[in-house]
């Protein structure tokens, strides 16, 4: 054992834990194929991918937050609030400006900005006022959910007909049959993976999550990086909303309900450590797909009582993680 060997043996082992979520995904796909011939149809595949996009985009941001040792429970209601605000403003603008592309662009800009601002508020309160992330975002979760209910007067905020028709292609349109949400999700996933693995920011997130004090002593700007993770997550919520609103053109008190739990579950199924210190974006993407597929499979068959859908979902989530534990080494 000398320094020479130290040089040669560079990253040899094939880590099985790495591919475990993929195995779970493949198993689900095989089950799907066995159960229904339409499962692999182009329509079904694109449906599943497109509907994964909202939570997927949010979960990418959540991966960074969790990797750096944080948590955000507010994303679901933040999405609802941002969507509500966007629709409200677009409707108002349509009245005054008479609709058209500018209104859509302003709406999009507003959604992105509102998401960013909401993320910033979470982040600043967590980093500067030092409030436990779980509690703070539990609080803002309630606040945003209330605000959207209030904005919608208890009901549903719907985009005016004309605007809706104009904005529709952002969800339903695409390039070569691949719809925009899928394209945006894929692009953001790749970007997220690169940021996590190949930039100082991603490395700093992992360092902070692993040991905040060590990070601070290594002159990592702990507070700024942590703040950034929340801001980024907020921005991604904004992007998700931009993709979401054209789908049904409406937002209500139930929009985005439980998205936070789904996003967190996807992140953890993907292999990111809940305690922080290690995260992988591609794992999160796989996690999101697993969750969407479970729902899809349950809708494609009916050998279980619909009351038990939730139970099946629970079992599969647990199994996916058990698989991961047992295929690979536990971290």
């Amino acid at each position, binding site marked *: 054992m000398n320094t020479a060997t130290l040089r040669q043996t560079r990253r040899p082992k094939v880590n099985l834990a790495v591919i475990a979520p993929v195995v779970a995904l493949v198993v689900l796909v095989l089950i799907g194929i066995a159960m*229904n011939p*339409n*499962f692999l*149809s182009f*329509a*079904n595949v694109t*449906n599943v991918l497109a*509907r994964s996009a909202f939570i997927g985009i949010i979960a990418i941001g959540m991966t960074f937050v969790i990797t750096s040792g944080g948590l955000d429970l507010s994303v679901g209601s933040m999405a609802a609030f941002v969507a509500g605000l966007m629709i409200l403003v677009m409707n108002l603008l349509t009245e005054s400006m008479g609709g058209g592309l500018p209104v859509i662009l302003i709406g999009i800009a507003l959604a992105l900005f509102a998401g960013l601002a909401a993320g910033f508020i979470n982040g600043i309160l967590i980093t500067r006022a030092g409030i436990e992330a779980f509690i703070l975002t539990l609080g803002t979760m309630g606040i945003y959910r209330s605000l959207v*209910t209030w904005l*919608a*007067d*208890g*009901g*549903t905020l*719907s985009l005016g007909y004309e605007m809706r028709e104009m904005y529709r292609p952002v969800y*339903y349109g695409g390039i070569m049959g691949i719809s925009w949400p899928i394209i945006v999700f894929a692009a953001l996933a790749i970007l997220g993976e690169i940021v996590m693995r190949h930039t100082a920011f991603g490395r700093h997130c992992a360092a902070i999550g692993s040991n905040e004090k060590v990070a601070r002593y290594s002159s990592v700007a702990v507070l700024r990086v942590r703040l950034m993770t929340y801001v980024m997550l907020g921005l991604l919520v904004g992007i998700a909303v931009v993709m979401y609103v054209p*789908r*049904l053109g*409406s937002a*209500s*008190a*139930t*929009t985005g*309900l439980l998205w936070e739990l789904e996003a967190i579950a996807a992140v953890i199924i993907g292999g990111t450590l809940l305690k922080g210190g290690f995260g992988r974006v591609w794992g999160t993407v796989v996690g999101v797909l697993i969750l969407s597929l479970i*729902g*899809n499979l349950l*809708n*494609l068959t*009916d050998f279980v009582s*619909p*009351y038990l*859908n939730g139970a099946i979902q629970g079992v599969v989530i647990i199994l996916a993680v058990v698989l991961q534990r047992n295929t690979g080494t536990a971290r």
Partner: protein
Amino acid sequence: ETIGISIPAATHGWAGALNYHAERTVERLSEANPDLEFVLTTTSDPGQQVSDLEDMVATRNIDALVVLPFESEPLTGPIQRIADSGVWVTVVDRGLTQEGIEDLYVAGDNDSFGRTAGEYFAETLDEGAKVVVMRGIASTVDNERVAGFESAIEGSGIEVLAMDHGNWNRDTAFNLMQDWLSRFPDIDAVWAADDDMAVGALAAIDQAGRTDEMFVVGGAGMKEMVDRIRNSDPTVPVNVTYPPAMISTAIEMTALGLTSGAPVSGEFIIASELITPENAENYYFEDSPY
């Protein structure tokens, strides 16, 4: 004089409209009768509703109560105790499991809601027609509606391909409909036990380009739906009423009873009606949020 009002929180479109009407009515009545005070609480589960009722009695000395029970069974006991203490009780929509507790009962009819839609299906569709059914959040209301629908189509030869919960939610309904469209090559009609779900289902059908193959019947008379019926949209031929404004009726009648000293008691059951292109105009309310 204080009137307590306890209704479910606005967790879906219909409940939202309920909230809207309740708030407006309270505003209007408070202005008209300065002596009247209102306590409006909204709740998201039966347990919390019981707590709200307890608070009203313990701290607000209510003289009358207008309550839309979140679930009938668990609220029966607590409401009975309030009624026993001499408070005027108006029950809205969901009946209690013991008879004779309430002074006034204003309600829609869930069985009729499902039945009316079912009857329309049985009439319009041929034998062997294939339909899918989207249910609401698992609850007694949902069970009653579905039972009404099922009994109406019994013997008509209509085949229910699939039945699942869309949870009165547009997004869930959209996903569910997408998957059903992938799964079933032939669908002749969709019954969504609420208009929010109908909106989601319609978007999915539209996306798949199968608008011409089937029609969708929702329920509760959402503005958007009534508008489509009014314009004779073949995809949305009819709708079934379940007016959220019943809460206004209940509050008004209770207030009237308190102020005029001539209490109006009894039962007002508002049966569900079929909205058709012919009568749609009567069900379209420009200002309603629903």
